[in-house]
Each structure stands twice: as structure tokens, then as C-alpha cells.
């Protein structure tokens, strides 16, 4: 099993969700986050005051997938999240040892 974490542009959430659903990924966690990579921040002046947004709003998606679905999911996320501009985001993959469904104690991939 692999945990897929993707940090994407807020505006791409619906497209990424649809792309993942199309390849059979149903469960995911979505978190509103702030951050920046190379994109850095943004400054706006309003009435003489400076409003600096050094951490930009992003969406972080997390899901744990069976290994045979991981590559497809990565492609789906990258394809749907890409605008070609700086700030499109990143995908991180990490191994997961086990998963437990709290309701009935199922373990491993069946718990996903």
C-alpha cells in the first residue's frame, strides 16, 4: 500500500477529484492548507497598507491506495492538476505498513 499526498492549486480540486473517481479511487481526505514552494508569495496593496501572502492557499489531498492503483492515480492527479504555471503543486508517495478499518478490524488492503 502507498500513501499518496498531493498539494495542488485550489482551483484544480474538482478536476482532480473527478479524475481520481474515474480510475476508481473513491476515498480521499482533503485539507485546506497554506504553503509555497518556488512560487513564493504575493503582495497586494490596499488603501496604503501592504497585504503580503507569503503562504498561498493550496489544497492537500491524501489517500492510501493499493499498489496497482498508485501509478494510475499519480497520472490522474498530475494530468488534472497541471496548468503549466509555477505553483501547480507536488505529489509525494510513501509506503504504508498496514491499515485497519476501525468498524470491523479488517486489515491490509481490504480495509482501504
Amino acid at each position, binding site marked *: 500500500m502507498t500513501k499518496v499526498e498531493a498539494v495542488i492549486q*485550489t482551483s484544480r*480540486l474538482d478536476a482532480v477529484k473527478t479524475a481520481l473517481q474515474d480510475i476508481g479511487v473513491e476515498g480521499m481526505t482533503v485539507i*485546506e492548507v497554506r504553503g509555497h514552494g518556488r512560487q513564493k508569495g504575493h503582495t*497586494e496593496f*490596499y*488603501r*496604503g497598507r501592504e497585504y503580503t*501572502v507569503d503562504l*498561498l*492557499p493550496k489544497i492537500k489531498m491524501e489517500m492510501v491506495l493499493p499498489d496497482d492503483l498508485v501509478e494510475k492515480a499519480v497520472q490522474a492527479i498530475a494530468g488534472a492538476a497541471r496548468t503549466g504555471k509555477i505553483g501547480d503543486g507536488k505529489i509525494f508517495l510513501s509506503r504504508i505498513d498496514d491499515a485497519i478499518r476501525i468498524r470491523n478490524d479488517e486489515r491490509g488492503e481490504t480495509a482501504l
Partner: protein
Amino acid sequence: MISSLRELHSSSCSLIRAKFLETLDGCSAIAQRTQLIDDLALRLWREFISEDAEGPSRFVLVATGGYGRSMLFPSSDVDLLFLHEGGWSDKESKDKIRRLSQEMWDLKLRLSPQTRAISECDRLDPNNLEFTISLLDARYLAGDRDLFARLRRSLIPRLVMREYQLIVEKLAEVTQARHGKFGNTIFHLEPNIKESPGGLRDYNIVHWLLLLSGIEKMRTSPDQQALISPAFREQFTEALNYLISVRCFLHYRHGRDDNTLTWEAQAEAASRGVGVEKESDISTEDWMRIYFRHARSIQRVAIQLLSEIPASRSSLYREFQNWRSRLSNSNFSVVNGFILLQQTGGAKDPELLLSMFQFMAEHGLRLGIATEQRLEQAGASLAGKFPKGGAFWKHFRELLIAPHAADALRAMHFLGLLNLFLPELAAIDSLVIRDYYHRFTVDEHSFRAIENLHALRRPSSEWEERFGEIFGELEQPELLLMALLLHDVGKGLPGDDHVKGSLEASWNCLTRLELSQADRDTVYFLIANHLEISATLRKDIFDHNTVEAFAEKVGTPERLKMLALLTYADIKSVNPEALSPWKAENIWQLYIAASNQLNRSVDQHTVHAGVKDENVTRLNLIAPALEKKVKQFLEGLPERYLKTHSPEEVLSHVEMANSLYHDPIQLNLRKGRHWLELTLVTPDRPALFAKVAGVLSTWGMNIIKANAFCNDAGVIVDTFFFTDRFRTLELNVHECDRFKRNVSETLAGDVDVERLVSQRLRNERQLPAKVKINTKIDFDNDASPHSTVVQVIAQDRPGLLHKMSSVFAHAECNIEIALIETEGQMAIDVFYLRTAGAKLDGPKQEEVRAHLSEQLSIT
């Protein structure tokens, strides 16, 4: 023995359950379960403690809490007190108590046993108020009757009389905390019928407060029903019986002590007719309306009693109460924060009632129960007597902008009065919608949104401070508040698109209230677009195209402010977590980006012949004879001009432009709601803006806002909004003509305005600034395709606008567009400048910056 008791318990519980499901009579079910547990407890007492039901001496079994009140719900805890007078702490005695308790647990009862010496009951532990409160409901079960009598007749009254103040204050404290947890409202989509405001816990509060007050005053347990006002006794009892039946139903349905009235439970309760006449066929929505009516009956008695608790008399509190009492006048008296009508006929006087609700909205008071009762009685006879149309709107808009408007609206709504004026709201009356995002009923959500907006006056976070600032700048906050009140009305109407429904209902409502076309358009726009910011936040809000498209849709800075505030208040009212800092920050970022876009792109879109514009079409419909002249006048004016002026104003400007060949300086002075307004239509000429600003300064006028536009024919339309600091024009009406003549003469070059301004400023006493504003001058050559945009932020002071515009005039810069605003002591001015028909190049910008800095430096 235990097996026979288990069988008895199980079969009796089944019987009680079956009977309840057949009759839905909750009172009978809880009485029967109480009786059953009494019997079981007595048998076990005889088995393990004493064969004699009234023995042994100095030891007694007492039912406390809900069990003591004989209100044992199907899955409620059984509270037992083993009370002794010493001598029952040895191992053998403890073992007897343990065995009795063990047997009850084995019967699957949720037992909460406590063993106490009677001396321990005489002390109030502030950290364990529950124990003292549970004693108030103590009921004898078995054992020494004398010991119980000492507890009931002597110890409890003594304890209450000694500790009354502390007990009631603690009770009020825990109740306030509990109500706060539920957002201080009964109107939840899935209420907890025990803990929510208006639930059974509030009934308990009423019961305990009456008991405590009776004991304190009469040294004995009073007849509680007699202490409730006769007018509400019946409603209160009816509400209690209803809640008892619903709680029994929930316990049987969930199989445990779960008191949440979920959507599924609501639907089932409605179809079974729990708590209502069985024959009636009732929808889930209507069944919930009955729930809210009953919850409100309980809640209002609880709140009334809590407010009557004598506070521990801090001088500050006394002062506050005295201050509130001083609000009393010939029509209303104010007692403990409650309004009481002074005259018996007051409840039938519509004008008086409207001013009472306005009074409530101003001062954050509640209606006294007696007042509510009189209004309820007068209800039907009031229909048709209230002012209608524009007359009603005049009252209502003042109520909407008052700081406690939401409380007044809730009170009017509960009494059915709001629906008399705004029948559109009946569709969302206590309406539960199945939506996991929302927590409150649709009407409460709308009131809460209004409350959240007014709460911006007392900001408690960074976002609230920012949004609070723009709330304070609104010219017509009542329009935003009206939009909030009506924005979700469509949720109660047929159809899938609630926005469409809200718009249809609102249009009728606003027309009936005789709002002007421009005001109706604004409210309509806000309702139509109340989801627009949320939709835009799903796009990239740092992308210029997103911001530009959004700003274009919004059109004017005033509408942008209102829409941002509406979105803020709407989301915040969905549930306490809905407006995350992430979301608030994003709304703010979109707001400032769009605000800058609107101020810096004014000349990008201008009116030209052949370009279809809704506003132009409307003008042509209103005045078809003027179509050609309107077209000529508008040619080349920024679209912003059209969006910020009503058709009536535009037509008046057209007429002024048509009169230019009689008199080349056309002036119009009128008194607006907040300010005086001077409009000038004339052919453009050098230093024109500076001269008018100068004349206003010499008359001591404080310019709050201004805008200046120019069409392709070189005719300018400048409007100055100002306050008359010395009330010169108000107190001397004939001075208006001299004032206008002075403006004309100055523009004609007959008056040396520079000299007059210098004289005026020399004579004027300069007051030190309360807030220091640093001057900022910002040039932007990219924002506009034709002009250099200059934004100046500076300390507001007399003559400021004249000074700035004179600098531009001396540098031979023409003001194409000016957008002048004042926020507190800060002047925020944007000018679109051109020199010799082009943008300002670098050296020119530096020259202007240097002169401006010199002129604006505070000496």
C-alpha cells in the same frame, strides 16, 4: 431471585415499550418505568438490607435526580443515594450496598449509586453542584423514614437558604455555558432534545429554580406549577409532555440514551405522529415546527427565570442594571433587561410596537413574558393595522441597521409579526433542510448572518477587524442586511434553484416596500450573486483574469464591499467552523484584488454608441425622447459612471449638459441622506477640480467623497459629497444660492480661490490628528491604457483635495477621472492623470511626487 427479577424487568419493559408504541404516551411510559424500578429496588432492599421495608434505622434508600422526579426515561440512568447517619461505613455494610448495586447492574440498569452520611449532604461543594441539585428531587424508596424526613424537611431547606445565591448563580453559569455550546439557539437542524436550549434540561432548570426560590421564600417545597405564570402554564405543560414523548420515542428508536433528533428520527416521528394528534397527517417540516414551538415555550420561561436571579451585586453589575433601567420611558419600562409595555393598550398600537422593536434592536433588550403574552393575544387583531409599503420600510430599515437587529427580528418572527410584514419569510419559518454543511434552520441562519455582520462593530480577530472596517464604510448597510434576510427564502419554495426562488420572492417584497429602483437593484444583485465569491474562490484568485472577470461582474466598489460582507456573514452563519481562517483570508484577498482592479481600470471600459448596455437600454425606456441626447452625453464616459449613478441621476446630468449653451456652468446642490451633494456639469478647463475643491474648503466644507468623469466631448461631470462642518447652509438657507454663485464665479475666474483658501486655512485652528497617517504616493503606468493612475493616501485635513489637485494643475496634468474617499482620518484618493494627451513619464512622475510630498507634509 435474580433470574425472576430479570424476567420481571424484561417482560415489564417490553410491555411498557409496546404500550408506548401503541399510545405514544410518554408521561405514562416514564411513570410506569419509575414504578417498575421502585418495585425492583424495594425487593432488592428486602433481600440484601432489611426484610422490613422501613428498616433498618439510620439508613435510607433515596431516589435522586430524574429518577427522584419520577421521570425515568427508557434508557435513563437510575440515580440512587444510600443515605446513613454514621455506622454504615464498615465492611459488612459496604458489602450489602455493593451486592444490591451489583444486582441492579445485572438487571442491565444503568445505575449511578452514591453513599453519603447525612452530614455530608449539608455541605455545598461548588465543584459538585450536581449532587446538591440532585438532592432537590430526593424521593423516599425504603429504609428509615425519619432520616429521610430530616433530609427533606430540614437539611435541604437549611442548605438552600444558606447557599441560595451560590447555587442559583452556579446553575445560571452552567446553563449559559450549555446554551453557548449550542450557539444559544433552539433552531438546530438536528437538535438534542435534552441538552439544546429549549430541551428537557431547560425544563429541569425551570423546575429547580422554582423549587429553590420557593424554599428560600417559604422554607418549604412549593407547588411549582403555581409559580409559573398562568398564561404560560398550559403551554409549558403541553411542551413538557411533548418533549417527554419525543425523548421516549428516541430512546426506544436508538436503544440507548441518545437524544439527538436526527433527520431520520424526525421523519419517523412525524409519520408516527409522536407528540401530536394521531389523526393528523403531518409533514416532517411541520412536525419540526411544532418541536420548535414547544422548545421555545420551555426556553422563554427558563430565560425569564434565569434573568430574575439576583446577581451577586457587584457595583459594576448594579450600575449596568441601573443604566438599563434608565432606558425606561413613557411607553416601555426596562426591568432586568426585559421590556414591559407601560400602557395596557400598547400591544394594539402598531406604531408603538414598531418603535418597541426598534428600541429592542438599539439596546439589546428582550421582551418580557407579559409583553410577549399581550402581543400574542393581540396578534390577529394587529393584521392589517401596521404601516405598509414605504412607510413600513422607513421603520424597518432603521431596525435593520441597529446593533441588536437580529434579536428584534427573532422576537418579531416568533410572535408571527415578521410574517405579517414580510410574508415571504413564512416559507423558511423554522425550516429544516437536510444539509450536512448547515447546522441551523434556514430562518435562524439568516438572523445569525445579520447578527454576525453587526458583531463586526466589536471585532475580535484580524479578519473581523478588516471586514468591520468596510462594514463601517457602507453607505446603505440596510440594503445588505435586507439581502441577508431574504437570500435563502428560496430554500422554502418549490424548485431546485433556491437563488431563483429567493429572487422571485424578494422582487415582490422589495416592490411592495417601495424601495427605489436603484436600491431594489442592489438587493437583487446581492441575492443573485450571494454564491459568487464562493464560486470564485474555487478558481485561482491570484490570477489576474479571475480577478478581472469577478470585478467586472460586481461592477462597483460599493457592491463589492457588500458582496464580500454578505459572503463573510453567510459562511460564518452556516456553522461555527465554516469560516476557517483559510477561507476568511481568501475572501479578503479576493476583495482587495477586485477593489484595486475596480479603482485602477475605470477607463478601460467606456460607453460607446453601438455597445449594448443594460443601463442605457433602461434610460431609453424611461426617456425615449432623450435617446439621442443621452447617447451624445454618455459617449466616452467610463462604464463606472453608469454603474454608480441611477437612471434618474444620469437623466438629470443629461439635462444639465443640454442647458450648457444657456449657462456654461451647471450646478446642482442637494441634501442626501448622509451628506450634501454638489454636482457640476461644464466643459472641461484647466484646474477645474482644484478650484471647486478650493471653494468648498473656503466655505469650511469637509469633502468626504468625490468623483470626476469626462466624456469624449470634453464635458465633465464632477460630484462632491461633503459635510457642512459649521452648518452654514443648514442654518442659512439663502446662503445656498450665494454658495453656488461663488462656485460659478470661481470657475469663471472672477475669484482668486488660492488667496481665499490660504486665508481660510490660516484662520482655522489645526487640531492634532487622532490617528497618524503616513503619506503614500503611488504611480502606476500599467493599470490604465490611457492614463497614469496615482493613488494618494494621506492624513485628512481641511483643504487637502484642493492642495493635491492644485499640484496636478500646476504640473499641467489633466485629471481624467478622480475617485475620492475618506475613511476616518485617512484620505484615499485615486486620480487618472494625463499630460499633453499622454501618460506621465518618469521625470514628470518624480516632479509631481516631489510637489505632492512638499504640499502634503504636515507642518
